[in-house]
């Protein structure tokens, strides 16, 4: 369970989040919507532990423990996952190499006595998932996000999520830059993990992702504060009227 308590965050002494509180239980999907600059991406990055943000007040608890002092990789090993709005391009490291290292890190953390997964088994698993996501298997051997289109990068993020099977996923504008088919594939991937009790925080400023994923709660973030929250019905209403007037 992810619990955010009265979170205040600044960057270079400029306040961005001004008291955000949010609780996400296993298997729940929460959507956070709001205009550009409302602090959505900051919220995502802070949960994952980006070093550039200063937390001036409040706390983030995961499974009852504060994670503020933990390094990003420690948070990941606990089961947090962030699908980036702008995934980084890193040359010299292939997607497969990167994911194998990450997978083995998770394995070592949860089963320290188990030998690391064999490369060919991992390859097979990865290829099967790629097929499901309709990704050319050549992407596995390409450098991480290098020369990937915007949509391919987003798919690659969800592929990584599907491999690492987090307990809680934070999806930062995962729907932007995706065409209709890709959006459906990505949403299917999220829904499947959600049915395995993964909680999710979906950040978006479009409504169209909500046609494929049904959130349990919707929150509107404005000026670093949640100004309104609601259930499924509220989401439907937002789809029609938009959040601009809230």
């Amino acid at each position, binding site marked *: 369970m992810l619990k955010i308590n009265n979170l205040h965050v600044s960057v270079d002494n400029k306040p961005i989040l001004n008291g955000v509180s949010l609780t996400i239980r296993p298997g729940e999907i929460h959507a956070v919507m709001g205009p550009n600059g409302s602090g959505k991406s900051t919220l995502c*990055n802070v949960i*994952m*532990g*980006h*070093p*550039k943000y200063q937390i001036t007040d409040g706390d983030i608890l995961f499974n009852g423990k504060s994670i503020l002092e933990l*390094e*990003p*990789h420690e*948070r*990941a*090993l606990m089961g947090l*996952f*962030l699908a*980036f709005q702008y*995934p*980084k391009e*890193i*040359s*010299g*490291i*292939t997607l*497969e*190499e*990167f*994911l*194998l*290292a*990450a997978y083995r*890190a*998770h394995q070592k*953390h949860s089963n320290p006595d188990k030998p690391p997964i064999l*490369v060919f088994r991992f*390859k097979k698993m990865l290829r099967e998932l790629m097929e499901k996501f309709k990704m050319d298997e050549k992407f*596995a*051997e390409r*450098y991480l996000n290098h020369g990937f289109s915007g949509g391919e990068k987003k798919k690659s993020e969800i592929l*990584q999520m599907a491999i*690492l099977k987090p307990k809680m996923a934070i999806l930062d504008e995962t729907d932007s830059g995706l065409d209709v088919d890709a959006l459906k594939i990505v949403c299917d991937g999220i829904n499947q993990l959600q049915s395995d009790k993964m909680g999710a925080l979906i950040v978006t400023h479009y409504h169209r992702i909500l046609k494929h994923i049904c959130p349990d709660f919707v929150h509107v973030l404005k000026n670093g504060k949640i100004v309104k929250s609601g259930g499924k019905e509220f989401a439907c209403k937002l789809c029609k009227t938009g959040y601009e007037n809230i």
Partner: protein
Amino acid sequence: MSNESLIKSQGKKAIFAGLKRETFDHKNQSDYIKRFRKGLTRELVEFISKDKNEPDWMLAHRLRAFDHFNNLPIPTWGPDLSALNFDEICFFAKATDKKGGFKSWEEVPEDIKYTFERLGIPEAERAVLAGVGVQYESEAIYHSLEKELSDMGVIFTDLDIAVHEHPELVKKYFMKCVPPNDHKFAALHGAVWSGGTFLYIPKGVKIPKPLQSYFRMNAMNMGQFEHTLIIVEDGAEGHYIEGCSAPKYGSQALHAGCVEIFVGQGAKFRYSSVENWSRDTYNLNTKRAIIEKDATMEWVGGNMGSGVTMLYPCSILKGDGSKSNHLSIAFANEGQIQDTGAKIIHIGKNTSSRVTMKSISKGGGASIYRGDVKITKAADNAISQVECDALILDPISSSDTIPDMKVDNETATVNHEARVGRLNEEDIFYLTSRGIPKEQAEAMIVNGFINPIVRGLPLEYAVEMNRLIELEMEGSVG
């Protein structure tokens, strides 16, 4: 991940499990060193030659070189060498009294074997390599060469032995590419050289597997002056690799080796080296190749260790249509100056050269690319392409590019590109957000940066290179 790199990550486990920086800095007891005094004199030069029972022409060569050494100045155009004290260096030492090395691994003394075993040499030999010539102190102690190679007429032996067994070849080529009056350290080398490798590949012979030799400096204050002489006859092909790792000591040691490669018409040769001398070493190496018509020379180098490194492999593109390719990595960590680069002289028509340099600076280290490209008057349609990429890992480290180009033919195409990058917080965050610890993430990025060069190395060396980078990255503050 490509098949190759997958094997790489697995192979790493097998060979380098439990290997630490101390393994490379480990030293054996060396009491024999007491038998030789420090400093360089005419008597010592004569003694070395006599001890090796050399022919008169070699003694004459040594003495001529010694005269040049006395007359030539210490170069001042590069890193500061003023702390180098020739009187404190031991110029000649032997680890064994047995001449001509050992024919099999079983004959090698235990303490020496131990050092090599810690470095993974026997595995390396079994796995990939066709022949091994290993230098311990100043003399090769171990040699093996597959029979098929000797049947093809290939000679792969200790240069000291070649002086006796193949005098006509050695006399014809020895220090004809790098003359002793080239500079002070070439002269020093010419006077006190000892051991090293002799490789001769006859006309048209193509060696499919890489040949390797491993150098290691082990006695305190001992200079290592090994000489690598490689003759690749017309239409022949081969690949030779040297790896160096020296233990750490409190006072300065000097390495002034020399590599000479003669690449015949239409021949292809690749020379690769991974150098990891201890931090108190001055690594002042001279490597040069003469490349004949339609021949190709490739230099692949990784420089990790040493306090001060000055190394600029040189290609003399003598024949029409000759080509050279220089690929190099330098890693400058705390207290290190990596002054490396390339030197290319275009003489023949339609010659081409390419330099790809990747440097990494960390912990206050300085890496400098020093390049020298000369296009002579006769070199019509020459093409030269130089690319330097620098990665600086923290604010206290530095990188510099000093290219020098002299173009005397207007049909030439010369290009130089330099880029400097820093370790990006966002990239690290991306990798760590997937559960990869920060140190490992940084090492992955650095290994990724040098990957285009490392993947050109044979598997074992690629693994060693990646492992050395990981060792250098340990405890880094990103």
